[in-house]
């Protein structure tokens, strides 16, 4: 019975990757040997991959730590915080755009797109590049191709358009997003793995670009979300910005308006603010020091932790507003919470911890790395989806109400916020004019009373109704939300059975045809793209290696022969750096690495030992 064997094989659970696609950092984790583990880049203790992309003039894309290292020198061709633009139109993100050094336009379909290397890139395509890089690093860590099926996390407060954009990004990356999972829910899974845990848990998730709070009840291994609230425009990015304003307010003379408008200066200030913020997590005061690469501009400001804390008070107040909303919806009081979990890098700040502790009246959990806990939870959910366990189950909710615009511009809510998903609801509608033969539907998402204040997810028309007196047609509109929180709407005239349905394709999203087109294009150019990116990465690596070698090889106390050999390798590498030959660049890189081995050893032994220890090459 050969079929039987095959069957057994097919039933073996296929592992599913967990990916945290973050505003500032992304990372992957996988369930292995009974627990979730972060898949770290080789030779790194830090699993986080900066969600940064650099587009060198000569083509290709550099993603991650290397791209981040280039942000200062190439502010206009290094993109970050792409997640803030997912599923958004230009009008939604005007403020965000003022704060980033790169420029965007709106495509004719209403999508935000960024211009680098002489072409337009949608946030979905950019996120796809990040996902692809995360997948490659995961494969490298595993020593074999990582699973192509993945659970990808999003902020709980993401709306339909943002969720679909994430799903499309996965598709463009050649991955199958088996589930779009809410970040705070994922975190609760990582914390509550121990299924004996029972009780009510609050997750306070203050990340790089977004804030979420979720309240869950854990009972017999079922994690049921009771309510969630948040702000998709509130995160560590905003903290950095407050720090920048703080330092500029008192150094008006040093940086004039012209310098402040310079993308390179903006980028430099942003990075300096981030460093300063991280230092202030442990120190009571720190320098915000900034040196523009070419202009000779400098800025140095001593920032006290207390100053930072005062500056971000309004931000923290907004997080607590969201917490209050979540409690009101869950019909609970903060005192009824058994445990509080902190997620997101911003929760490292002592004043955030203190604020949370005061609000909930409980010391929050911080045992797991707040940057890794979401990816770990995604891996747990991947394990569940792969059929690995039936002990755990997530029951999540939709963060925003869904409805239809009615006559006069009001909203008739059909699915209320914090309704468990999957979910479905049917509402009867009718015609308002004599012999009306069609009805236009505007599907909206949001809490406001008027449709124009909510987000329109899309419009569709039910036509071909038989002419009838007003109010006699019976149109049943069905809203169905899947487990990812993504909506499908169908409308049916009950007397005729006439049906219209839309997969609500958001206004600021890609159509299936567009996704398909992009995929086709990427297949067609797969080889060139791959080689261009590989070359771009090699060149970046060569630059870093060259800089390090040139700075030290003469006076590291090496014998003359080695010095000569290094000099030769440097020359060869410089030539290869300027050519477009992938094989030559690879050869030069390997040769340079081999020739500089004695140099590295000498440096490690000598004075530089302390300075270099624990740092990656691209950080030196």
């Amino acid at each position, binding site marked *: 019975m050969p079929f039987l064997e095959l069957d057994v094989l097919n039933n073996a659970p296929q592992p599913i990757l967990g990916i945290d696609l973050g505003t500032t950092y992304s990372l992957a984790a996988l369930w292995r040997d009974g627990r979730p583990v972060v898949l770290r880049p080789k030779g790194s203790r830090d699993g986080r991959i900066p969600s940064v992309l650099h587009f060198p003039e000569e083509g290709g894309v550099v993603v991650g730590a290397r791209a981040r290292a280039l942000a200062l020198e190439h502010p206009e061709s290094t993109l970050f915080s792409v997640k803030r633009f997912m599923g958004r139109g230009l009008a939604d993100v005007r403020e965000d755009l003022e704060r980033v050094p790169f420029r965007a336009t709106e495509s004719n379909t209403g999508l935000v797109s960024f211009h680098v290397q002489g072409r337009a890139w949608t946030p979905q395509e950019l996120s796809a590049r990040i996902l692809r890089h995360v997948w490659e690093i995961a494969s490298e860590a595993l020593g074999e191709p990582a699973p192509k099926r993945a659970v990808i996390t999003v902020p709980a407060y993401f709306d339909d358009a943002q969720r679909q954009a994430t799903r499309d990004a996965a598709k463009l990356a050649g991955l199958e997003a088996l589930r779009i999972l809410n970040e705070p829910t994922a975190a609760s899974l990582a914390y509550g793995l121990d299924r004996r845990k029972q009780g009510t848990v609050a997750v306070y998730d203050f990340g790089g670009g977004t804030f979420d709070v979720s309240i869950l009840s854990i009972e017999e291994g079922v994690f049921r979300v009771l309510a969630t609230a948040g702000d998709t425009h509130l995160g560590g990015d905003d903290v950095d910005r407050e720090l920048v304003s703080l330092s500029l307010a008192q150094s008006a003379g040093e940086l004039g308006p012209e310098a402040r408008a310079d993308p390179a200066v903006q980028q430099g200030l942003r990075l300096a603010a981030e460093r300063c913020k991280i230092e202030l997590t442990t120190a009571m005061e720190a320098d915000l020091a900034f040196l523009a690469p070419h202009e000779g501009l400098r800025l140095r400001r001593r920032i006290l932790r207390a100053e930072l804390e005062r500056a971000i008070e309004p931000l923290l107040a907004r997080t*607590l507003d969201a917490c209050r909303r979540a409690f009101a919806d869950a019909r609970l009081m903060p005192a009824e919470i058994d445990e509080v979990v902190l997620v997101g890098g911003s929760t490292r700040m002592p004043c955030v911890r203190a604020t949370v502790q*005061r609000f909930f009246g409980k010391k929050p959990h911080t045992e797991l790395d707040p940057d890794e806990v979401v990816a770990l939870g995604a891996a747990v959910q991947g394990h569940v*989806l792969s059929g690995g366990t039936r002990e755990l189950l997530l029951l999540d909710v939709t963060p925003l109400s869904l409805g239809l615009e009615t006559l006069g511009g009001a909203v008739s809510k059909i699915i209320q916020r914090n309704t468990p998903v999957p979910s479905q609801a049917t509402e009867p509608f009718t015609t308002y004019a004599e012999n009306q033969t069609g009805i236009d539907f505007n599907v909206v998402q949001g809490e406001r009373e008027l449709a124009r204040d909510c987000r329109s997810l899309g419009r569709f028309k039910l036509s071909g109704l038989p002419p009838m007196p007003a109010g006699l047609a019976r149109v049943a509109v069905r809203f169905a939300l*899947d487990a990812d929180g993504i909506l499908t709407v169908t409308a049916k005239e009950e007397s005729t059975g006439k049906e219209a349905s839309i997969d609500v394709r958001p206004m600021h999203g890609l159509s299936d045809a567009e996704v398909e087109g992009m995929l086709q294009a990427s297949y067609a150019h797969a080889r060139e793209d791959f080689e261009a990116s590989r070359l771009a990465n090699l060149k970046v690596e060569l630059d870093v290696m060259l800089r390090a070698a040139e700075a030290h090889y003469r006076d590291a106390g090496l014998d003359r022969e080695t010095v000569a050999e290094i000099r030769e390798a440097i020359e060869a590498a410089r030539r290869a750096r300027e050519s477009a030959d992938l094989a030559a660049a690879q050869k030069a890189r390997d040769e340079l690495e081999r020739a500089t081995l004695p140099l590295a050893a000498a440096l490690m032994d000598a004075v530089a030992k302390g300075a270099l220890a624990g740092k990656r090459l691209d950080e030196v």
Partner: protein
Amino acid sequence: MTIVQHEHAPENCPKCWAKLATPLFCETCQHMLESSQTLSPFRALGIPPTYELNAMALRKRLLALSRRLHPDFHANADPATQGLALRNSAELNSAFEVLSDDVRRADWLVKSLAGPSEEEERSMPSAFLAEVLEWNEAIEAARRDPEDGTLRAALDELERKLDDERRRTMAEVARMLSPLPPARSETLRSIRKHLNAVRYIDRARHEISELALRRSSATPC
């Protein structure tokens, strides 16, 4: 239309003929089933249609059925099964949403007993009306001047009063619905009026909490 007529879902499992508690899933042979289009929330969860419910038993029922129906446990199944899991899970969740909320549960029962809908009967119990005017004024005043201490105290007082009033009104609804009154009876109209009052109270409570939320952005650090 009565509850009995709602129950046109199959009584026995088409696969193993065991008696079904819920048309969504056969708990005897563990098969997911195609359910009919309109399903009573009580039938979906497999519990008898009564107003008084044991909240914990209801929740346990949701969890037990979710463990069978949720799409997460069918992610590797064929597309048809996946679709069924999605639909049945959605049906289950919607049913739980109705039954776990006292007002929605009462509303559903009134409608299923062919009682008046909220469009057909818009009035509230008469004893209620005089107070409503007074309450509206207190909320309006507080909205105009959110910082006024006396108005705030009055609002807190009103919130307590509304809570009491809600409890009293829902107790009255519970009394009228237990046991279920006959279909189309006058009791249903009275229940509808009480539910209208509770809707008003809930809206007022919501507005008060919104006012409180707007006030409470106090300094956190």
